[in-house]
């Protein structure tokens, strides 16, 4: 996707209208200047996380230059990465995110296929409805959901509150509508002749989906997967409400509720935790930036 657009913007630079070329060099310089400013603004917090994570708590409390490390140490990293509690948070987060991504794909891909291709009674309404549920925020639902699961536990004896797997039920409400929406867009852009030919050849709908649509819409699928992963990795409100025991926590909530202790400030460790918590999405982003952006913009350009 991005390659296409880059090609498009290529010719613009060749167009020259006398004095406009001087304007352009100035415009370019100003652009670089402001981009640098904005880039600094964007990168200050992560940079500061990194700096602080390399300091010992004695150095932090000595209140030396906050932007520089005089005695860099990896002790915060060692301490966190050998702490059972922290690893537990990390694994909880990883498991929750991976399972949620799987569930999301299993639900949204067939649904998107059906909604994009197999027009049936109410399918248009349903497609719009799916989109609208994306607009119902977590902060509206957390209280009723919390009470619902408590009541459910009362009735059935199956306890879901304060179990990490309760998140497997809740997170899909955040990921599925948007992923379905992305996939509808991608599937809709596939030429109708393809699946019509397949159906005439005797393929079932399911085969059409797995053999034709999924391979063709793979970029969209990757974008949706990344989206689902980052959303479940970053969620904060639901795990804060639903899980409390330290062995049930996911990373963001774990860091914020157990590393920050009232009277002891171990900010070196907190920043280390925050950095490690930010690492998986950052790594994915570093390698799959184009897919990431495609997934992000899919909502606007296609939906």
């Amino acid at each position, binding site marked *: 996707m991005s390659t296409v657009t880059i090609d498009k913007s290529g010719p613009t630079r060749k167009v020259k209208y006398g004095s406009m070329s001087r304007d352009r060099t100035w415009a370019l310089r100003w652009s670089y200047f402001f981009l640098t400013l904005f880039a600094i603004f964007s990168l200050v917090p992560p940079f500061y996380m990194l700096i602080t994570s390399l300091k010992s708590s004695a150095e932090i409390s*000595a209140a030396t230059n906050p932007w520089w490390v005089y005695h860099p140490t990896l002790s915060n990293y060692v301490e966190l990465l050998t702490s059972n509690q922290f690893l537990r948070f990390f694994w909880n987060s990883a498991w929750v995110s991976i399972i949620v991504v799987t569930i999301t794909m299993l639900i949204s891909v067939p649904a998107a296929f059906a909604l994009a291709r197999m027009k049936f009674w109410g399918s248009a309404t349903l497609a719009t409805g799916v989109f609208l549920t994306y607009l119902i925020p977590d902060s509206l639902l957390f209280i009723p959901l919390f009470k619902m699961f408590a009541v459910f536990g009362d009735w059935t004896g199956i306890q879901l509150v304060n179990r990490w797997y309760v998140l497997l039920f809740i997170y899909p409400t955040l990921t599925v509508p948007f992923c379905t929406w992305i996939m509808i867009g991608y599937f809709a852009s596939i030429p109708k002749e393809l699946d019509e030919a397949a159906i005439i050849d005797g393929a079932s709908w399911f085969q059409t989906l797995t053999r034709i649509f999924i391979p063709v819409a793979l970029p969209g699928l990757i974008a949706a997967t990344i989206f689902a992963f980052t959303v479940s990795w970053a969620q904060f409100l639901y795990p804060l409400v*639903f899980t*409390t*025991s*330290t062995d049930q926590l996911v990373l963001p909530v774990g860091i*914020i509720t157990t590393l*920050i*202790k*009232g*009277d002891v400030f171990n900010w070196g460790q907190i920043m280390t935790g925050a950095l490690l918590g930010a690492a998986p999405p950052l790594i994915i982003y570093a390698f799959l930036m184009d897919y990431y952006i495609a997934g992000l913009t899919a909502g606007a350009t296609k939906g």
Partner: protein
Amino acid sequence: MSRKKLSRREFVAATALSSAALITAPYVRGAYAAGKLSMGFWDHWVPGANSASTELVNEWAAKEKVEVQLDYITSQGNKNIVTIAAEAQAKSGHDIFQMPTWWPQSNAELLEPVNDIMDPLIKLNGDVNGTVKYLGQADGKWLGVPASVGSQIKGPCSRIDLMKKYANIDVQEMYPAGSAPKADNWTLDTFLKAAEACHKAGFPFGIGLGETSDNVDTAGAIFQSFGAQLVDAKGNLTVKTDAVRQSLEFYKKLLAFLPPDVAAWDDASNNKWLVAGKGAMIMNPPSAWAVAKRDAPQVAEQCWTHGFPAGPKGRFAPYLPFFWSIWSFSKNKEAAKSLLSYLSQPASIEKMVVASGGYDLPAYEKLTTLKVWEEVGPPKGTLYHYPNPFKHQTLSIAASPAPPKVAQQIYFQATLTKMCLRYYQGEAMEKTLAWAEGECEGFMRS
């Protein structure tokens, strides 16, 4: 060091052995042997203090052959309160939960009465103070066992050097280690003058006015020393009284001498303030000093914990007890009771107090003069007056003596500090009072 600790523990244990046996004996029935017990304890702020409770619980578990699961839950960001609310709603969770101050009362219907262990414990360890009774008892029913862990007095922790230099107050002379305080002149007026002097010198007192407990506790004690209550013991609104007005006036004067952003302070801010060497005094239990000992020893050497300044209606110190409560949905109540009484034996209590560097305050009368408070340092004797050994100040909690369920809201919603801030920021006195009255009316909602 650990050996020394052990030997004293054994000594105390021996003296208490006979009575201890009497208390624990009835529960050793084996009915819960090999059962399970989970507990959510308060995550201690003093580095390393959790280990003593972990050890004690494990000792007990090994003896009783009970499988235990021990969680430490911090109170930062109200994590423990959220957890209590979640477990109360879900009617499931830990068997024992260490609840702060008001929370046993607010969950009274969901807690197992523990009179059967409290009565013998009081006989063994001495009576408990009035605040513990106010918070821990409903209609004669004990809602939990007062936990020594985490229970604290939040008196002043002053910098000896700065107070001497700028405020001309020798805190060590006023509260000498090993003997009774000579603090008759230590009043709110003196305090205010010292605050002014230190502010001028660039080392303002670090007293927060945020919404967390440290801030509310200080305000509570000052309000009480003016005799100010928002709601009285019978549940009547008493916001619009002169005592409340006086307290607000006092706070208005004090606030001018505090750091500019105290409105955003939480329980960690005052500690950071002290440890960073930026202020001459904070109102906090010795955890700040303990952290300073680790990270900024030159600051720790100058710290002195002492009594609260007295106001027109007496000398009050903020006291913040914790309780170990047993949820009524617990499936192993007998084991829970056995553990709690094990943890409340004098030897266990002393072990925990020592591990917390003297931070923890046992609720029982006979246990307020442990050696640890004399010994820890540097400077030696810095904690001698922390446990209020001469009973020269009244231990109380903010918003008392209002009915606990209302008081809890006043406390948790930080109505006191919010009032002070509103008035300080230029709101008319009567408007602030009217606002507070409206809030208190709202808190009576059932």
